[in-house]
């Protein structure tokens, strides 16, 4: 690990979610140090993680405090310690849209934020994106959703509220697939279309999307609403976005007197959902960060973490407010 192979380094403060690091080129190794854990010497806290070319996804060598002291023990994330395995480090290419493996859904509630039961939540954390299919909720099947409230190997919930519940429970025949760790790496091209979960009747209608939208105030979008979704008066209108939060934005159209928006009924299929189509920006959007269109794909690494506090303590993505340093490098040759 000669210093002259280091291609990039940096530090950040964890927000408690998987950390995504955009790198300038491919790497053969990365070392991550959690300064907060190093100094605190909390028992079972990970301090250092090293990923080397040849290791699998979500793995790393790890150093940790086996006792509440500065003594260090070692393991790997995939083998783990203290009866648990931990999240590791994964090379990512955000242009690769291959879905994760199919995982069975054993039940799902009929609610505007359905809760899905599964025996394996994999690497899901709040903000992850999943694709659901094959359930009895045919108005949900085939779409991507941002999730929240992940209970390890038990359940996850759809984060963004639907206008109306799916109309039926999900049954035990469906599946979910992991699509992306967050909305930040969901889109290869930015901005991108979104399927609409709800539009309120208000002086400035509020649009909720199934996947967090990433739009910024000033962007121009067209709203397409098939007749199955109600609010047909808004169909085809070109509107300006005012960002509210990750899953919602308001538009410069009074929808108060419009027909109520409804999420399609599960018995009405096949159907086309209501969508938001980005078409441009107004003059208030001057930042080059938000152009009319850009290829947002990159290569880098993901430092995994978990909503489960004990696992986050031993994972390189850390827990919220942890200060994390990293350095990554390239070798002249990787011999096998």
């Amino acid at each position: 690990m000669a210093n002259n192979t280091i291609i990039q380094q940096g530090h950040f403060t964890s927000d408690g979610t998987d950390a995504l690091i955009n790198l300038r080129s491919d790497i053969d190794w990365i070392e991550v140090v959690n300064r907060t854990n190093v100094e605190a010497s909390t028992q079972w806290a990970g301090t250092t993680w090293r990923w080397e070319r040849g290791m699998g996804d979500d793995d790393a060598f790890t150093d940790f405090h086996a006792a509440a002291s500065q003594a260090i023990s070692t393991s790997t994330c995939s083998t783990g310690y203290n009866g648990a395995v931990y999240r590791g480090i994964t090379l990512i290419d955000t242009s690769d849209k291959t879905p994760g493996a199919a995982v069975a859904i054993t039940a799902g509630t009929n609610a505007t934020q359905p809760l899905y039961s599964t025996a394996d939540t994999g690497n899901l954390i709040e903000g992850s994106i999943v694709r659901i299919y094959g359930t009895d909720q045919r108005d949900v099947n085939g779409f991507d959703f941002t999730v929240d409230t992940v209970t390890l190997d038990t359940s996850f919930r759809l984060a963004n509220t639907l206008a109306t519940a799916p109309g039926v429970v999900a049954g035990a025949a469906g599946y979910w697939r992991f699509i992306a760790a967050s909305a930040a790496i969901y889109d290869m091209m930015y901005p991108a279309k979104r399927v609409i979960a709800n539009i309120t009747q208000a002086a400035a209608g509020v649009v909720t999307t199934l996947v967090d939208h990433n739009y910024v105030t000033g962007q121009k979008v067209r709203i397409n609403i098939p007749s199955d979704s109600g609010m047909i008066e808004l169909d085809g209108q070109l509107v300006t976005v005012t960002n509210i939060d990750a899953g919602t934005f308001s538009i410069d159209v009074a929808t108060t007197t419009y027909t109520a928006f409804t999420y399609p009924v599960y018995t009405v299929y096949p159907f086309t959902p209501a969508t938001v189509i980005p078409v441009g920006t107004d003059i208030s959007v001057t930042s080059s960060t938000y152009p009319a269109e850009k290829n947002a794909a990159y290569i880098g690494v993901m430092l995994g973490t978990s909503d489960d506090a004990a696992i986050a303590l031993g994972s390189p993505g850390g827990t919220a407010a942890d200060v994390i340093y990293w350095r990554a490098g390239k070798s002249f040759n990787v011999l096998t």
Partner: protein
Amino acid sequence: MQAQDPVLNEAVKRLGVSMRQTEDELTRDMLAATASFINCTGGVNGDNPTEITRFDVGEVVRTLVGNDANTILDNIEGENKFGTAPTRDAYFALAHTDLTTNLDAMATFVSKAEYPAPMKALRSEWGTSGNLRFLVSSVGSSVASESDLGDTVYNVFCMGMEAYACVEQDGYSASFIYRPPIFDGPLALNCSVGYKFAEVPRITNDLWIINLRSTLS
């Protein structure tokens, strides 16, 4: 270059294909991300979207015509030849090669061999239905597990004239670069060959392009 270095020549040929295919794939991904879409609903395979049908072609054409999109290709006049039929002026429909069986099965589909003047068909063309002429590619757009039943969904980009453009940045579209060994290292042992391009694919009028999504029957 050909006579001097066959290895370099082979690399150049492959990189040339890679360059243009990469440009096409970026344009494809832009269209998949930002074009309005309609799910096929006229089929009977029980999925959402269904397989593509003449009904769905009609829906797309009606929408494009209603949005004042101009067709790209002229009609081909009928001629007194057995087994041929005149073709309408048409919008382009860019599809995946996996869809060819479903296209052949579509009511009123006319393959390019049945055109009165097949030489007017494009090399990648498969045939026509309504006012769409289908061009197919093995790297056409598709998304795994995105249907109701978990099957692959195929995107067919149906577009009128000037619906999208590739905007060249920095005054050039693409550069193919070769640096001979003497300029590439102090010992003149290795050469460099590669390409770079600076283009932004962009929909110019979102009303003139529709992504018709379908599954296989």
